[in-house]
Every structure is written in C-alpha cells, then in structure tokens.
C-alpha cells in the first residue's frame, strides 16, 4: 500500500487508467502547464526545417499529433495558396511573353511585307510591258506545233496495228499480278482460320508438357440404351455423365439424334470453352483495369 501523501501527489497527476461511462467517449485529460509550454515551443518551430527533421519530429510527437495537425493544416493551406499564386504568376508571365513576341513579330513583319508588296508591284508592271512582245512571238511557235502534231498522228497510226498484241500481254501480266496479290492477302487469313481452330491453337504453358488426349477419349460413347428406345413418357432419365447439364424442363432426347448430337456438341464445347474462355476473362480483366486506371486518373 502506497503512502497517503504519495497517493495525494499522484491524484494531482493525469490518471494512467480511468473509468469511462460505457458507450461514451471520455474527455481527454488536459495536460499540465509544462507539457503545454513544450507543445507551444514545438508549434513555434520554423517551417523551413528539412523533411528529415520533420519526420523525426513527428515520430517523437506521436502523442501530440492532433494539436500539431491542427497547426499544420493552416500552414499547408498557406503553402497551397502560395503554390497556386506562383503558378498563376508563371502562367501570366508566359502569356505576357507570348503577347510581346507576337507584337514584336508583327512589327518585324511590317517592313518585310512592304518590301514584298513593292516587289509584286514591280513584277506586275514588268509583265504588263512584256505581254505585247510575247503576243508577237506566238505565230512562229504555232507553226512548229502544227508540224509536231502531224508527226504524232503518223506515229499513232503505226502503233494501232501493234496494240492488240501488247494489250493481251499486259492483261495476262495484270492477271498474274492480281493472283499473286490475292494469294498474299489470303495467306494470313488462312493462317488466322487455322489458329481459330482450337486444335491448332497454342497450348497454355501449364498443359504444354501434358500428352495430348486422343480424340476417341474425348468423344464419349453415349449409352442411351435405356432411354433411347422406346421414348420415356415420364421425366427424362439422363445418363450420369449428362446429369449436370440437364435441366428440369428439358425434353427427352430422340432416339435418332441421340447418337450424334450430344457426343459431338459437348466434346466440342469442352474444347472450345477451355481456350477462348480464359483469354476472354484475361481480356476482361485488362479492360476493367484500364477503365479503373482511367477513372483514377480523372480523379
């Protein structure tokens, strides 16, 4: 049992563990004056201390986080405001500079434009003077042109006789070229067709080493002997192998169809579902990821 006076002294201090009404948040005991002074001193620390020191300070002041947070919040707001201001100033400066540049270019352009205008005027004047001289020179040129036309007409007549042979050759060449082109275009399509076939598709890494199952193993022999003939009047009695795919409302299979349809369809379905389903799921995942990423970027 502690001494009476020690207990009295302890009563003056903040309790380590005290009762609180059930379901109510108890009021945090106010710290004594000394601690208050320490907190005030911490809050008055200069803001330009480097990040390391800040982190260390935070680690030490875990208990005093809330009042500090409250003190930091306005400081952060001030920082943000300053940043926004500086950004605005920078943007304004850029705009001013651009405006100045444009104005300067305009000023610089004016004499150049004047010079160009002067040049075009001179050219126009020169052309006006040269036009009558050119008209005078034209009759001589026309005579030469007539002679050239006569020569070309004579050459054309000669060529007309040779044309059927050359045309046929050209057509054959064109046909050959078309065929080659068609073959080239068809090749990747054929490859794609082959790849679409599940048997030809590349296997996933997990099943690559496994031996390929034989077709006979996949194609289960149907055993509908009991249900196929005669058709059952009551509820359908499927073989155990098909029990999972049978629904309550499904009609009983006919005897004539029962030998081919179920075997082929289900085996093909099994194979088809294996490969593309996985890739589709993967594609869906990627799509959803990209959508989420876009959404987060927007936020």
């Amino acid at each position: 049992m502690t001494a009476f006076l020690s207990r009295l002294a302890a009563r003056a201090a903040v309790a380590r563990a005290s009762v609180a009404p059930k379901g109510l948040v108890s009021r945090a005991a106010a710290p004594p004056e000394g601690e208050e002074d320490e907190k005030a001193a911490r809050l008055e620390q200069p803001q330009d201390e480097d990040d390391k020191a800040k982190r260390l300070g935070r680690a030490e002041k875990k208990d005093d986080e809330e009042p500090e947070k409250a003190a930091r919040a306005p400081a952060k707001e001030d920082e943000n405001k300053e940043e926004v201001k500086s950004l605005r100033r920078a943007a304004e400066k850029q705009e001013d500079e651009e405006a100045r540049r444009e104005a300067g270019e305009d000023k610089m352009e004016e004499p150049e434009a004047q010079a160009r205008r002067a040049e075009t005027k001179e050219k126009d004047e020169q052309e006006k003077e040269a036009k009558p001289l050119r008209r005078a020179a034209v009759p001589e040129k026309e005579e030469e042109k007539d002679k050239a036309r006569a020569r070309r007409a004579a050459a054309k007549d000669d060529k007309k006789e040779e044309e059927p042979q050359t045309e046929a050759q050209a057509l054959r060449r064109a046909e050959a070229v078309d065929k080659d082109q068609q073959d080239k275009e068809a090749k990747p399509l054929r490859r794609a067709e082959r790849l679409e076939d599940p048997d030809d598709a590349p296997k996933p890494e997990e099943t690559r080493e496994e031996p390929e199952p034989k077709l006979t193993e996949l194609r289960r022999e149907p055993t509908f002997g009991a249900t196929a003939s005669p058709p059952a009047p009551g509820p359908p009695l499927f073989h155990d192998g098909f029990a999972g795919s049978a629904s309550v409302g499904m009609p009983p299979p006919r005897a004539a169809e029962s030998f081919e349809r179920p075997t082929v369809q289900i085996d093909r379905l099994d194979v088809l579902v294996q490969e593309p389903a996985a890739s589709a799921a993967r594609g869906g995942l990627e799509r959803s990821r990209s959508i989420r990423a876009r959404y987060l970027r927007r936020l």
Partner: protein
Amino acid sequence: MTRAASTLPVDFPEPLFRPVDGHVEIRVAEAVEARLPRPRRVTAIIAAICERLAGQPADEEQVRRVSAAGREWLLQQAGFEFFRGSTWFEAPCTACGARFDLELPLTAAPRGRAGNGFPEVEVCTSLGPRWFEAPNGHHEEAMAARRDGDPRRAFATLCSLADEPAADADRFIEEDLERIDAALEAISPDIADGVDVTCPDCGKPGRVRIDPLTFAFPHSETILRDVHVIAGAYRWAEADILALPSSRRRAYVALIRGDAARPANRATLQ
C-alpha cells in the same frame, strides 16, 4: 506552532449548488478544459458550481481551504449535477490494455470521516514535537507545481505549522517522514477515487481511477452550439440564452432542430 491551520475544520463541507444554467455550465466547462494542473481545475469547478460551502460563500479561496478528500468528494457531487448516466462503466486493464465493463454506483462511493483533532495533528519527530495540518487545496496546488523529490518531504514542508518548515523538512529523517505520513492519514478524511479490479482477460489485478473530470462535466462546444442555434433562430443575445436553465435551453434547441427537420419547413426555407 507559529501559524494557524488554513484547512477548513469540516471534513466534507455540505455544498449548496447554484441552479444550473448556461453561465454555470460554460464556467464549469471552461474550467474542465483549461490547460492547468488538476488541483487548480478542481478549485475552479467547485467554485463555479457551488454557491455556498458549509454555510460560507464558496469562492476559490474557500474551496482551497477544503481538505483534499473533501475537495474530491465535492468534485464527485458536482459531477452528479451534470452526469445522469448509468452505473455501468468501462476501464482499460493496466497490464494488458483490454477494456472491460464494471458496475460502479458512484453515488455510493465510500468515504472516511476525519480523525480526532482534525485538521491539526502533533507528531513527535527527531527534531522534537511538530504540528501539522491536514492537506488542503493550497497544498495540492503547490504540490502539483513540484515535479520531483519525495512527496512526503514536500508535504512535510507545506503542511508544517512550524516557524521554519523548509529547514525542518530538510532535516527530517526517514522515520520522521513515515510518522508524519501516518499521522496526517489518521486525521484526514478519505474518499474512494479509484477501484481495485482484476482484469477478466489476463487475470492480473490493477487499479483504475474514478476521475469525474474525464466524463461528468459538459463540453463548452456543446453549450456554444446551443447558443448559436437559439441565437440564429430567435435573435436573442448570448447572455440571455446562457441565463436560461439548461433544461429549457436544450428544449428550445430541440424545437428549433425539430422544425428544421420537418419537410414542410424545409420546403418553405428553400
């Protein structure tokens, strides 16, 4: 004995509480939330809520004169003026930190009456017979300002009625301090301010404090919010709103909030 004892000669002075209105509530709340040592806050709270103590006007000086146990009892009684919760409390285990429930009828907290000769007692020390008084609010406040040293020696200095208490306290031997401690305990009243518990999780025994300051008194924010709501609705002055009895103020606030919550009023407001 060269000076008279300052401790009030009544161990548990019967209080006459003020009618609880906004002014009292805000004074109490501000005292609770003040960043001061606990004994100073206790003095301010009791002075705010008590009109009279043992028939005398209850100012801060009068409250300081009450014995340590009497002050703690007055604080608990003041807490009951505001706290009308159930008797179920929860507490953390000092060993494992697990929280557990316990039923505490605080109104029936045990208290021990003062001994014969209260508030003064004579102790035979190695320096000769010395007179001491039972610790009171003055001593508690002075003690809270000290941070180190043996609390018994500190109290021996503070409670001594000798000519040179500090010099005496320095020369007291360990046996003197034990005798002084035992003598002061014998004459002083006592009040239960904690509970001995056994943690249901780890099974270790521990002690949890009953501190009304942490749960019994109103928050200034709540009172100011009430004032804000009423002032906004009726355009009354702050002093007038605080002068309302607390129950009536809360009723007005409930009416205002109820009106605001009705869809018809919302529509007219919009």
